[in-house]
């Protein structure tokens, strides 16, 4: 039965966006943990760590996120390890997000002048103290705009989780569109909701970037 696309549907779409946000939070948290480890490995003075992190990043950046989602959701269940959609999504997005955040943060860490490390070392600080008190705080400032940029990509990429059964914003749009037969109105609404989430973030990122450029 075909029904009208009304206020109720819009409310449903807005509610479905909470799964988009939940997936984003999960993906970003997992990706950040993996990314932090990768970034530190990439600037390590121990070559095998650098190489391992680099291989990981090359592989993940060279494969589609969708394949990772399928691999964890369908692949593992066939291999006898049934995982639920949340677990599969958590793994796939952490692996994917980690590879990109790792590269962004590595760039930020090496953008801090090597003389800052030297100054810290010369005062008797340990590697971890130099990292924690001297390098990281400066790298965070450099990394914030591109990290927010990646977060925006991530928000949009959570729509891929629809393929493993999540009814998030895009999937809810598909369902609404199927029952109302108003694809244009529905997907415009969906696009607007994504935009309303992403636009403040890109603006924020731009402002931080300007402030950072002024500060140098």
């Amino acid at each position, binding site marked *: 039965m075909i029904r009208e696309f009304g206020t109720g549907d819009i409310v449903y779409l807005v509610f479905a966006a909470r799964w988009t946000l939940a997936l984003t939070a999960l993906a970003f948290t997992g990706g950040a943990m993996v990314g932090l480890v990768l970034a530190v490995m990439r600037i390590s003075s121990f070559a095998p760590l650098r190489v391992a992190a680099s291989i990981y990043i090359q592989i993940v950046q060279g494969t589609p996120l969708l394949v990772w989602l399928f691999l964890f959701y369908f692949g593992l269940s066939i291999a006898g390890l049934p995982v639920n959609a949340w677990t599969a999504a958590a793994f796939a997005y952490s692996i994917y997000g980690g590879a990109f955040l790792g590269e962004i943060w590595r760039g930020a860490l090496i953008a801090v*002048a090597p*003389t*800052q490390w*030297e*100054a*810290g*070392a*010369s*005062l*008797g*600080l*340990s590697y971890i*103290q130099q990292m924690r*008190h*001297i390098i990281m*705080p*400066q790298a965070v*400032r450099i990394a914030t705009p591109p990290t927010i940029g990646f977060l925006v990509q991530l928000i949009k990429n959570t729509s891929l989780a629809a393929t493993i059964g999540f009814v998030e914003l895009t999937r809810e749009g598909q369902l609404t569109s199927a029952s109302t037969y108003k694809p244009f109105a529905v997907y415009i609404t969906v696009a607007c909701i994504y935009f309303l989430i992403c636009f403040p973030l890109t603006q924020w990122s731009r402002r931080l970037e300007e402030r950072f450029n002024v*500060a140098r």
Partner: protein
Amino acid sequence: MSRVELINVSKNYGPLRVLNDVSLSIETGEVIAIIGRSGSGKSTLLRCLNGLEPIQSGEILIDGVKVNDPDTDLRKLRQNVGIVFQSFNLFPHLSVSDNITLAPRLVLKQSPDQARKIASDVLARVGLADKIDAMPQQLSGGQQQRVAIARSLAMNPQLMLFDEVTSALDPELTGEVLRVLEGVARDGMTMILVTHEMGFARHFATRIVFMHEGKVWEQGAVADTLSNPQTAELKSFLDAVLN
């Protein structure tokens, strides 16, 4: 025991030999001015002294502790060896106070109050007591360098290394940094300075070390060495810098 002892130290960057069989002995309270052309190895020598650069052969001893030994705790050694760099290298995200108190708090485990007290003491020594809460970028180059010296002093080192500390400064800012160095020298600090400031070397150094092609080419008491160079290389260097 000498404060600093270099025994047949050599260092290469790839095929390039930057320090060639350097031996040097420095006693407590000496102020050594290392002079020489750029590329003569003088800055490298300084950076080897606190282990920022590894050496390929020879021995460096500071208060009898071997710098180039994997078993040496370089962190502990560096607490006693301050270094001030040409480009200041203040931490731009930290206030003057935090720049100075960071290492005393983390390394010497001083309480925040104790560290801040020391910060205001060392800032007074470099004439910047009123800048304790400023950010580095609010300061002139000369003031930043004075803060860097204060940061080093706050660790109460037994030896201080100065790597061309006035080279990045305008001539009118050089004077204020040199006056701070004079004060530190008068307080009896053992100092090794790589410098182009011949006037400062003449008045405050106890010994001149002239480096050439990675070697200690000539050294001796200041007045003697400057007025009566023994080698053609030092003579031509002095002619170039003094005229």
